[in-house]
């Protein structure tokens, strides 16, 4: 029996298929039978653990290719397990374990918990499938499947008014459409849809269009500009575990995975080339715009959502340099981001669970009541701000290094982003946890959050420290081998100047915060002097009116188009209902009036008819 199982599991094909099928099965079980909390908890842990075991065993195996026999010719379901993708599988599986546990506990009393687990598990199945696919077309299938589950989760709470769901569907759908276009062009140019068989394509001409489309699709999934604006809306509407799971973790994994593969495997992106500059510009813009919007938010979830956008910018910037140090920096930053951002979303969820709100104007001084949550927040907040020796510092330094090597403008943009990040987290942390205790009026018994939610947060916080202090572990242990780099990027940053500049920026951020607190009188309004600065005020007003939101542009275009169609439709209706009918009626009346029953007139008509026939004959004969 055991032999059979072990031989069964030794076959790579079965492992791969189980990576896709098992989460879906567990999800269905949770959806069907997950009426009780305990059942859900067991199912969640079981599903995530099995998934993690499989992923680790794939990671330890040597790379292999599998083509599943049941498929039509040209669309073979080909899977390719090699170091890079199985590394991502392991990341996903580990993150899934934490998020799954957190979600079950967070949604303990919610009626839709089973549905949420169903969607989450199916999403994992889709992500596993997308990471494993060798065939770009098959990958696209799983990719779009993730869009479906995303839509479903966003619908859970808001069936009556699915604003966030529709927005996410439109924006992510547009990004996925671009990806599809890019995949078609790429497969056509390369002559094969299999990534493992592709020669690196040059980024120029038609292939350049393919590169741009695929890149937009990949970073759009990760939450970069211009497909980002659904995330803050989802922060208002969706359950908090969703934020930790999707914008915080899973979508970053998937999007960055594909972005790295595009740059390293599919296309030959040269450092310093025009396309590289373009990608870096996109990254820098994402950093600055995302963090600038985060700065003025007064709600924890919204603020974190904007940071989730902003941090993607660093990854895109790093990958866009096409330098090894940039790519590994981007990947490392992704890993770190998942650790601290998921942890941050989880602390926000804990606060929401205990106090019923995440509005910073209603809460304050929670450190006394929720010390463990506060500790997790402080660790992850320091990590995202890039304070040494936490993990965010090291990955940012790698990216700074790569940016500076490309162009100093990008470096300055990235520094500005770091400055604003630090400012906004100082504001948020002090507003929520420091100072006098402030609670919403109806809440009295606020205490530390439950163990089941605290555990994933603590694990992530520990990871934040571990990846910083012992950054050799992820960098040299996982990322470099997966990418095939021989050079070591671990350890303390080699350029002391960069470190000094970063520290100065952090110090400036602290100064700015103190200045802001003095000026406005409270920590929560510490960023107001930036918000209401002369020119920025107008820009922020415009941004809050959604003038810069591509979604609102799309909606305006759609509205204009539908108005145009309405006019055309009215014209057509008028033609059928009024013009044609009246023309026919008028002609009938005219003819009726002519034939008035007078025999003389009839005879004249007959003779005229003969004349007409004569004319026809003459016309033909002459």
């Amino acid at each position: 029996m055991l032999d059979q199982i072990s031989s069964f599991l030794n076959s790579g094909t079965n492992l791969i298929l189980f990576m896709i099928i098992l989460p879906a099965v567990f999800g269905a079980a949770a959806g069907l039978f997950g009426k009780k909390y305990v059942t859900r908890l067991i199912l969640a842990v079981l599903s995530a653990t099995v998934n993690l075991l499989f992923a680790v065993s794939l990671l330890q195996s040597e790379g292999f290719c599998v083509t599943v026999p049941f498929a039509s010719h040209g669309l073979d379901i080909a899977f390719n397990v090699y170091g890079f993708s199985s590394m991502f599988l392991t990341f996903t599986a580990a993150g899934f374990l934490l998020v799954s546990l957190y979600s079950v506990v967070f949604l303990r009393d919610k009626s839709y918990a089973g549905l949420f687990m169903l969607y989450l598990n199916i999403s994992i199945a889709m992500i596993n499938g997308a990471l494993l696919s060798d065939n770009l077309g098959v990958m696209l299938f799983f990719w779009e499947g993730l869009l479906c589950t995303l839509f479903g989760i966003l619908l859970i709470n808001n069936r009556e008014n699915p604003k966030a769901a529709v927005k996410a569907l439109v924006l992510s759908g547009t990004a996925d459409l671009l990806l599809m276009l890019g995949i078609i062009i790429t497969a056509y140019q390369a002559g094969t849809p299999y990534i493992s068989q592709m020669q690196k394509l040059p980024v120029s001409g038609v292939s350049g269009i393919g590169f741009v489309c695929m890149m937009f699709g990949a970073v759009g999934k990760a939450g970069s500009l211009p497909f980002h604006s659904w995330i803050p809306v989802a922060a208002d509407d969706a359950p908090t575990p969703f934020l930790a799971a999707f914008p915080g973790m899973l979508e970053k994994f998937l999007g960055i995975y594909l972005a790295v593969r595009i740059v390293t495997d599919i296309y030959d992106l040269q450092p310093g080339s025009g396309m590289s500059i373009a990608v870096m510009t996109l990254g820098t813009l994402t950093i600055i715009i995302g963090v600038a919007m985060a700065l003025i938010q007064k709600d924890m979830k919204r603020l974190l959502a904007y940071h989730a956008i902003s941090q993607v910018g660093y990854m895109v910037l790093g990958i866009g340099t096409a330098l090894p140090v940039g790519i590994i920096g981007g990947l490392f930053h992704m890993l770190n981001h998942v650790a601290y951002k998921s942890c941050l979303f989880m602390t926000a969820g804990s606060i929401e669970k205990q106090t019923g709100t995440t509005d910073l104007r209603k809460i304050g001084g929670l450190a006394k009541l929720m010390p463990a949550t506060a500790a997790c927040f402080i660790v992850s907040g320091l990590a995202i701000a890039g304070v040494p020796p936490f993990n965010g510092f090291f990955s940012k330094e790698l990216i700074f290094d790569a940016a500076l090597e490309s162009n100093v403008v990008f470096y300055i943009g990235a520094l500005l982003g770091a400055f604003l990040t630090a400012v906004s987290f100082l504001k948020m942390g002090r507003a929520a946890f420091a100072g006098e205790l402030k609670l919403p009026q109806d809440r009295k018994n606020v205490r530390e959050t439950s163990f089941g939610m605290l555990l994933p947060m603590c694990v992530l916080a520990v990871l934040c420290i571990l990846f910083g202090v012992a950054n050799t572990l992820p960098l040299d242990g996982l990322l470099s081998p997966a990418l095939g780099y021989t050079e070591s990027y671990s350890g303390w940053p080699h350029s002391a100047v960069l470190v000094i500049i970063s520290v100065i920026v952090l110090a400036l951020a602290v100064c700015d915060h103190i200045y802001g607190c003095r000026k406005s009188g409270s920590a929560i309004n510490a960023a107001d002097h930036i918000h209401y600065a002369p020119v920025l005020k107008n820009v922020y007003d415009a941004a809050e009116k959604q003038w810069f939101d591509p979604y609102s542009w799309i909606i305006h275009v759609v509205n204009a188009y539908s108005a145009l169609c309405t006019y055309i439709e009215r014209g057509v209706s008028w033609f059928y209902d009024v013009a044609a009918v009246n023309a026919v009626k008028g002609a009938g009346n005219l003819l009726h009036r002519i034939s008035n029953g007078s025999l003389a007139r009839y005879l004249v008509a007959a003779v005229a008819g003969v004349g007409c026939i004569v004319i026809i004959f003459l016309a033909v004969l002459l």
Partner: protein
Amino acid sequence: MSAMAYIAVSFLVVPLIIIIINNLISRKAAGKVSLYMACACAVIQMASSVTDFFLLSAKHLHEYKFTLLWNMEEAGAEHFGVTSLSLVILFCIGFVSLISVLIAFKTIEHKKISYVNLLMTLILGMNGMVIVTDLFSLYVFLEIVGISSFVLIAMFQSETGLEGAFKYLVMSALASIFILTGLSFIFMYTGSLQYSQIGDILSVKDGSQQTLIYAAVILLISGFAVKTGSVPFHSWLPDAHQSADTAVSVLLSGIVIKVAGIYSFIVLTNLFSGVPAINLTLAIMGIVSIVTGALLALRQTHFKRIVAYSSVSQMGYILLGISTGSTLGLVGAVAHIFNHATFKSTLFANAAALHEQTGTLDINEMGGLQKKMPVTGFSNIAAFLSTAGIPPFAGFWSKLLIIMALWKNSMQVYAGIALFSSILTAAYFLRMQKKVFFGKVPAKYAELKEIGGSIKFAEIMLTIVIIGAGVCFPLALMYLKGRGIL
């Protein structure tokens, strides 16, 4: 004489015998049996034409020639002849006559003997037109048809009937002048009026006196157009149809205008196939008739007048089919002749039923009669859908053939207009259907009953024929293909 000869001769002899019997026996006896004799005549004619059709195709003959009492081998002797085409038309004559008699059972109370005498004369005239083989005999039988029609229109009702008949008489006189003059021109040119000889002479002679032939053709077209009732020679047709008794209207619309007009046009195009202007004239006349007839029908309020204008419109389709000059177009035209006979007979049978039950034919006074007269209502729907050319009704196939023939003949514009006019056809009939059969029932018709007897029988039979012909039409096409005609 062979069986075929007996059958062929019966087309002329049976109506004559019935006229003689009808007038020999006492008036009392004749009043009882005359309609049944007419019925028998129609049925015999249908049976004869079907039998002859299959005999002809079994013998692989194009035409069967026969005479009555003289020897056709003598020099200059005339002869009769039947072809597949003329047998189809003979069948239609019998069919419509049968419907007319069935309607007459209900609508005609007095003057039954005169009706039967005139009907027999009319059948004799039409049969004669179809089986003769020279233009002058065609003209003679045309006059027989015309004169019996005038009297049939005029004899039942006093004032309006007279007016309709008078208009028809005047217009027909004009047509007679045209036709006779045209014939004399042709005779001047060729020295013969036999179909076979005219064709030969025309192909041999050079163009020294072409103008004479063209003048003759123009006059003949005008004359036949009056008989067909195509625009702008249609003015007599609605009045005559409206004022005549329904049993007579169904004859006029169902078969007389077709034999007197359309069949003459078929003969004309066959004889003068070298004159392309004829085809163009017919096509233009057809299109104008289709559109004008439909537009005028939209405006009418009298049930039979709508149907009459619809006839003008439908004759246009048949003219279009003939104008292509191709076999496909001719087959389409002949199929449309048959289909038109079925659905127009249905509509007139419905008109008779409505008139019998309500006493009026003004569609504004009617309403909601579908519940009261379900059979009439349903047969009306079948008939007008067939007219509009909706599959699977019979009219769809013939219109399709005509439009296909037009298209193949690169007359796409005509095909397009013909296709679009189907919408107009549906429009005026839908209007009629809505006003008569849908909506609220007026209080005065609360006690209305469905018509019974022979008219109901005719309605049911015709509906079955319309639907059955529509469903079985592909079989007919396969038969034609098997015989190598298509």
